[in-house]
């Protein structure tokens, strides 16, 4: 049993899933589900579709080079069964998985590092410029820092009477 990678989205294909397409030049394309298969038939380039791993790696959203990927590399020579090797491999898989997840989280954190500062700045700017869209006269009266400087406008008596009638 071998866990393959989908040609289109690079997810693992477990046994019993997916379709293999063999082209006449003997190149085999494996797809994890019909979504990937249909996109392939439409001749879409996976590097241009945002949800594929190919796009994410190309645009630096996910880790590209790391020593934890060495374990998953395809080896074509079958290994002779050795109980000790099997045991240590199983342990290693678990450990390497944990390390890889941690490194990916760190990569993501590095990517999102400046986000909070940018958000704060944008919010401050919006407060300055667009406070007039948010009409809360009670709040404006309470806290002078939220408002623009007050301007005194004279209201005539007749206008207030019209409003009362309505």
């Amino acid at each position, binding site marked *: 049993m071998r866990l393959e990678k989908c040609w289109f989205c690079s997810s693992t294909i477990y046994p019993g899933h997916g379709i293999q397409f*063999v082209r006449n030049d003997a190149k085999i394309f494996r797809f994890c589900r019909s979504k990937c298969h249909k996109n392939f038939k439409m001749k879409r380039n996976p590097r241009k579709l945002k949800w594929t791993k190919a796009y994410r790696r190309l645009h630096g959203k996910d880790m590209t080079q790391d020593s934890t990927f060495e374990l998953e590399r395809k080896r074509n020579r079958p290994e002779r069964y050795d109980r000790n090797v099997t045991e240590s491999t199983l342990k290693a898989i678990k450990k390497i998985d944990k390390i890889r997840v941690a490194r990916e989280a760190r990569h993501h954190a590095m990517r999102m590092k400046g986000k909070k500062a940018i958000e704060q700045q944008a919010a401050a700017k919006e407060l300055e410029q667009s406070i007039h869209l948010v009409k809360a006269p009670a709040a404006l009266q309470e806290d002078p820092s939220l408002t623009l400087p007050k301007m005194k406008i004279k209201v005539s008596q007749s206008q207030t009477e019209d409003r009362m009638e309505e």
Partner: protein
Amino acid sequence: MLTVVVGAGRSLLGSLSNNLLGAVKTTHEVIPRLHYNSIFSQQQRTFIQMRTNLKVVDNSGAKRVMCIQALKGRRGARLGDTIIASVKEAQPRGKVKKGEVVYGVVVRAAMQRGRCDGSEIKFDDNAVVIVNKQGEPIGTRVFGPVPHELRKKKHLKILTLAEHIA
């Protein structure tokens, strides 16, 4: 009373016209979409049956062959089955001539075939290897990839001649 009837009639008419409009609108919307999809994804691949043209991928001399009978299967032949075929196009100096009735083994089929591990495999075209009544190939070379399914069907000679086993 009259007014009520007229009103009912109008509402009926209105609903009818609405339905018609709705139906017309949906067909207008759906037709271009269906047209686009059908080119790429809705092509239903079926069995190899009478009048199916197949490519010949060995050096027996024939180029194209038309199936006249699928030996197993009520609906038609699939990957790995034998068929009886008539040679439609042949190379000038070959072991088979045009118009001969020959047996063939389907080595590539555009219709997907399920494998025992649950996955499915399909090829790009329909191809056949010309075989004698005992199941031995007439030619001495086979071109292109061939599937594993031939092993179970005991077409081992074809497997040994193949350049790539998918």
